[in-house]
């Protein structure tokens, strides 16, 4: 499904991702964990080329996202191809990034209407259904400013789902969600996985990783130091850095 080949990312002199090779299978839930600053967000953002990189290739369902390797040379794909490809990848940000000038409903209907040619009625029906899923039907017509942090993130998830993407990327999706809703959102996410959705999730909630992940990746200092089923990683990690990280995290 997602193939990452020889990905390198620099911020100036700072080598943030180092020769990442990774294959993520379809319909699975991948959780990325690791210390702060290890490059989790950066890796996730590279997947839909929001973070540009100069070296490597990432493909989704065979289609390149951002760059492709031609005879070992990494070249950028045309903008239109990238925009098309991004429609298949939903993204949920740590800082929500709702559109403040649009109502909750409009935040959700905008993209499907403009990009998938859905009628207003169709898009609204879909949006209402998604708002119901995240428990916010009654907020359909307010501006984002009037929502609490948790509510904002739920709208952001609904907005991404509205494009009916093949892959969903989450950068700490539940860190701002209130616990009553975490269960429901997980439900939604599991449902999506069943329907064939591939999900890549950066999170600090180890409990969630244990429960929901098919695979856990441990990133440290720009390198994938471990990748396995959650029970393996959490019960019997091989890498000493993983042990150290997990002991700190699980201590409280």
């Amino acid at each position: 499904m997602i193939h990452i080949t020889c990905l390198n990312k620099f911020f100036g002199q700072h080598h943030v991702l180092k020769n990442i090779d990774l294959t993520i299978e379809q319909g699975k839930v991948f959780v990325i964990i690791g210390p702060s600053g290890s490059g989790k967000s950066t890796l996730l953002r590279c997947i839909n080329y929001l973070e540009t990189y100069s070296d490597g290739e990432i493909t989704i369902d065979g289609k390149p996202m951002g760059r492709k390797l031609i005879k070992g040379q990494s070249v950028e794909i045309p903008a239109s191809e990238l925009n098309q490809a991004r429609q298949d990848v939903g993204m949920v940000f740590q800082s929500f990034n709702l559109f403040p000038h649009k109502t909750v409903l409009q935040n959700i209907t905008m993209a499907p209407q403009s990009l998938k040619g859905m009628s207003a009625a169709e898009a609204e029906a879909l949006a209402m259904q998604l708002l119901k899923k995240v428990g916010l039907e009654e907020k359909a017509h307010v501006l984002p400013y009037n929502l609490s942090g948790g509510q904002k993130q739920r709208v952001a998830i609904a907005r991404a789902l509205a494009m009916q993407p093949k892959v969903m990327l989450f950068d700490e999706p539940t860190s701002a969600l209130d616990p009553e809703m975490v269960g429901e959102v997980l439900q939604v996410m599991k449902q999506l996985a069943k329907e064939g959705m591939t999900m890549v999730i950066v999170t600090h909630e180890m409990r969630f990783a244990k429960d929901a992940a098919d695979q856990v990746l441990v990133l440290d200092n720009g390198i994938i130091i471990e990748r396995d089923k959650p029970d393996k990683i959490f019960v019997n990690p091989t890498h000493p850095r993983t042990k150290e990280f997990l002991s700190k995290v699980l201590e409280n």
Partner: protein
Amino acid sequence: MAFDFSVIFLGQNVHFLLYGLLSTIFFSVSSFALSLLIGTVIAFGQLSSVTIYRAFSLAYLSWFRATPLLVQLFMLYYGLPLVLHVDTVAWISGIIALGMYSGSYSSQIIRGAIQSIDRGQMEAGRSLGFSYPQTMRKIIIPQAFLRMLAPLTNEFISLTKNSSLLSTITVVELFRQANILIADTYRTMEFLVAIAVLYYLFNNLIGYVGMALETRFRTGGELQ
């Protein structure tokens, strides 16, 4: 020495001034429309990664913003016939010159507002699959619009007054009408006050609309 404002209402004078006002309104509104168009083109040029477009925009800005409108007007209206032997029509030259001049100012207002938007907005738009121009049009510009409103209102009001320079290229407008009446009657202060009142009314209408739009487009997250 006292003033005698009754002179304003003598004969055709009021009618004469109102005709000037209508003309001023016509020229200001048309050139402001042109100004917004040009301003947008130049603003995006300045942000563009296409070198030639960016260079053109910077050159445009540096000339049209930095030199006096009167010089630009003269060059267009008198200079073109002298140099290229083409004929120029006063009122059309006037709208074009005003629009091009004001467009350079609008461009900086538009660019400044766009650049001040949180970059997370662009990321959210792009990650949904919107192209760069789509994200600009649907997400960034509508938010930047609110931040442009106060300075664009300034620019529009300023334009109504700059339009008085059109009288130097024979166009009839409000200030010119007052000058004619003043030259006739030597009631300088009286007629200046009279047109000040007319400008006051029209420009505060613009100011009011600007302020109403600001209120209308607030999202609640701003300071006030």
